[in-house]
């Protein structure tokens, strides 16, 4: 599903992996016209990430690339060359937004700072998504997802005591940086354009995601510690437990929810013990023991049965679903749209996570083949002739 909310907005993306590509995808799914620039012959490194259709590796069949780049047009451009930079300038002159995730050292090396690029368009909104930001002592540090999660506060509290701290199951930091960048871009446009936005991926975690933890630490208030599947200082239960066919999240932040849950469980004797009167104490001191009592009951029931009980009694129980179960959840069917593409046939991709009423919608377009829209963009936008296009190709510029 593609909305037309940002219709008329032209965006140039120079992005690899997740952060800048997901940012531009958010804009594209809202109706902006996005041109994605890739390196000639190689392309976005997400093309080699996979997962590949039927495990047949091919740079046009990488699931992550195809997902993050739907609704975009694709061109190739070698920014190592003066001609390539001139062409980029031409694209920016006709656009309102430029988003990239070049490392700061690469921005320096290629001369792609805001001051030089705004010479092409003084109203340009440029968003630079970098690991640690454009200033500060770590500016030039390298980082991948786990490093950003580690510095951003994801890892310290995840895992078991005496074992290594864990990170997200799959790379996630880029998505948070992308959301920050996409909103910042639109906010900058609302304020009149002509701005440079500095988004540090690590700060997508250490800011909005984990920022309050500093004050929590100052007051020693619900500190995150590695305590396995339990979290300290919450009322029990607030954890994932075993059930008949897998795992279920069991919560009950409100006292009445806990009383209802016990009722549904048949008011077991163990719950009447004095030492379980305070549920935070129960969580912090007896959680493993109580898990056993709870699982005795849960193991008799499937995830589906427990979900039905949750809906009936307004209890916060939730099945731990794998990605197959998520994909096959009928209530999410309209989140996914099948997109046909020569190299893969129809594949379903998730669209925008919001429903906008009364907006014109269009079916989504597939991610571009490498250099697919070179002629459309370079000839139609920038006015290069077909002969010049051939020369640009023959000389490795595009």
């Amino acid at each position, binding site marked *: 599903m593609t909305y037309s909310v940002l219709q*008329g907005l032209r965006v140039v993306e120079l992005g690899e992996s997740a952060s800048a590509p997901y940012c531009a995808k958010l804009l594209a799914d809202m109706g902006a016209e996005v041109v994605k620039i890739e390196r000639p012959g190689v392309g976005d490194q997400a093309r080699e990430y996979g997962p590949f259709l039927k495990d047949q590796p091919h740079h046009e069949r990488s*699931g992550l690339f195809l997902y993050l780049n739907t609704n975009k047009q694709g061109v190739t451009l070698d920014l190592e060359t003066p001609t390539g930079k001139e062409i980029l300038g031409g694209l920016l002159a006709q656009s309102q937004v430029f988003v990239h995730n070049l490392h700061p050292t690469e921005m320096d090396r290629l001369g792609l700072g805001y001051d030089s690029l705004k010479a092409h368009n003084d109203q340009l909104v440029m968003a630079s998504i970098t690991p640690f930001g454009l200033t500060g*002592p770590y500016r030039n540090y390298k980082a991948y997802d786990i490093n950003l999660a580690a*510095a951003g506060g994801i890892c310290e509290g995840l895992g078991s005591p005496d074992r290594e701290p864990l990170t997200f199951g799959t790379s996630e930091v880029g998505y948070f940086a992308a959301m920050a960048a996409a909103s910042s871009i639109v*906010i900058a446009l609302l304020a009149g354009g002509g701005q440079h936005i500095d988004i540090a991926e690590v700060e997508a975690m250490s800011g909005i995601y984990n920022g309050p933890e500093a004050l929590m630490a100052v007051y020693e208030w619900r500190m995150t510690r590695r305590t396995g599947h339990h979290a300290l200082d919450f009322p029990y239960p607030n954890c994932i437990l075993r059930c008949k066919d897998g795992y279920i999240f069991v919560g009950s932040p409100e006292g009445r929810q806990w009383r209802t849950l016990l009722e549904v469980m048949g008011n077991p004797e163990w719950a009447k013990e004095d030492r379980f009167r305070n549920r935070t104490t129960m969580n912090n001191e007896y959680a493993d023991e109580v898990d056993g009592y709870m699982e005795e009951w849960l193991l008799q029931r499937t995830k589906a049965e427990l979900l039905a009980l949750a809906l009936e009694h307004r209890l916060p129980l939730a099945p*731990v679903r794998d990605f197959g179960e998520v994909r096959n959840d009928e*209530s999410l069917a309209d989140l996914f749209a099948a997109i046909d593409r020569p190299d893969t046939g129809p594949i379903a991709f998730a669209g*925008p996570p919001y429903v906008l009423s009364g907006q014109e919608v269009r079916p989504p377009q597939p991610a571009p083949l490498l250099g697919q829209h070179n002629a459309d963009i370079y000839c139609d936008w920038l006015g290069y002739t077909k002969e010049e296009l051939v020369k640009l190709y023959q000389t490795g510029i595009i």
Partner: protein
Amino acid sequence: MSQEDRTAQAGPLTGYRVLDFGWVLAGALPGMVLADMGAEVMKVETRQRMDYMRLGRPIIGDKPDPEQHPLFHNVNRGKLSIALNTTKPEAIDLIKALVAHCDVVIENFSPGVMDRLGIGYDVISGIKPEIIMASISSNGQTGPLRDLRAYAPSIGALAGLDSTMGYEGERPLGLKHAYADIAGALHSVFAIVSALHQKKQTGRGQYIDVSMLRATVVTMGAGLMEYEMTGRVMGPKGNHDPVMAPYGNYPCQGDDDWVSIAVRTEEEWQGLKTAMGSPSWCEKEQFASRYSRLGNRRELDENLSTWTRERTAGDITELLQSHGVAAIPVMGAEDRLFNPHFQERGLYSDIDHPALGTEPIYNIMWNLDRTPPSIRRHAPLLGEHNQQIFGGLLGIDKEEIARLEEQEVLW
């Protein structure tokens, strides 16, 4: 910059006004962002049913105090607070009067509550057609899961997020963060400001229905596509990456001291080797290529750990980064608060709060160079701005406001 200066400085959204029914976390965050960007955000709350984030143990003394919750102080800074008891019909009338002055309405009550109160989108857009209203809920305003009682961890479970979160091959531990709240809130901000952009161009309003479940699912690209492309489902993955080795958090010399290290390219592997002084184990055949290192990553991790254990996370970081290798310590909250990089970039600001004094409050770090966001004031006391809003904006006189307070309408 003093707090007075901060308040006075215009932001990119100065001039926009927001009626913010958002509470707890997912609902409170969008208004917080808009306030930092300069919008006037009026938080609608009530003693009748207090925002959960005002509850909990007090920092000072032993009596419950709605002004002492550290999370509340973080995620409601910059807002104005008006106390309105929505169980009273007069409060609903006041809300309708306020809507006429607003550009955006945000709410995250259970689906159906706004309609039941008589202030659903139909009513609100009837008052002001160009209004933008965002409803944030766990599972959307429609569908079979609409009425499921769900919190951030429930949604992490339902979205597939938790299925990969744990040590490789072991039970899922779950992610003990409010991931779904934040994913829901951030997608909401994007939808809201996009709708404002459209409103500016065309004058049209918009209703936005954001599901936190959907907002979490769309960030699961790798896991969703694994199933879509291969039919396989992922289980708990530990710190294993499909294309990188070494990749993990490695033990260091200090107590519970860890460093994250990730190596993607051959050049980075050579950098790591050189930084370690080219130990002989690096030359083993099983570590000779990216491919073989991935296949033998457990043995690789063991060898690398013997080296990291002899050093501090800080020393390793400096050494490896100087050789072009991605490394950074696993940081705790205090590490970030006192870290020179984050300090130079201004991750935290000292904000004075009337109940607790000076506190480190995080900045959103969306750095727009010409119109930067800033924390404009401390989180409001409950009802702190009744006089300013009902007197100033709506022109209600003092006696009438006193009566409304007396009768627990402004409550």
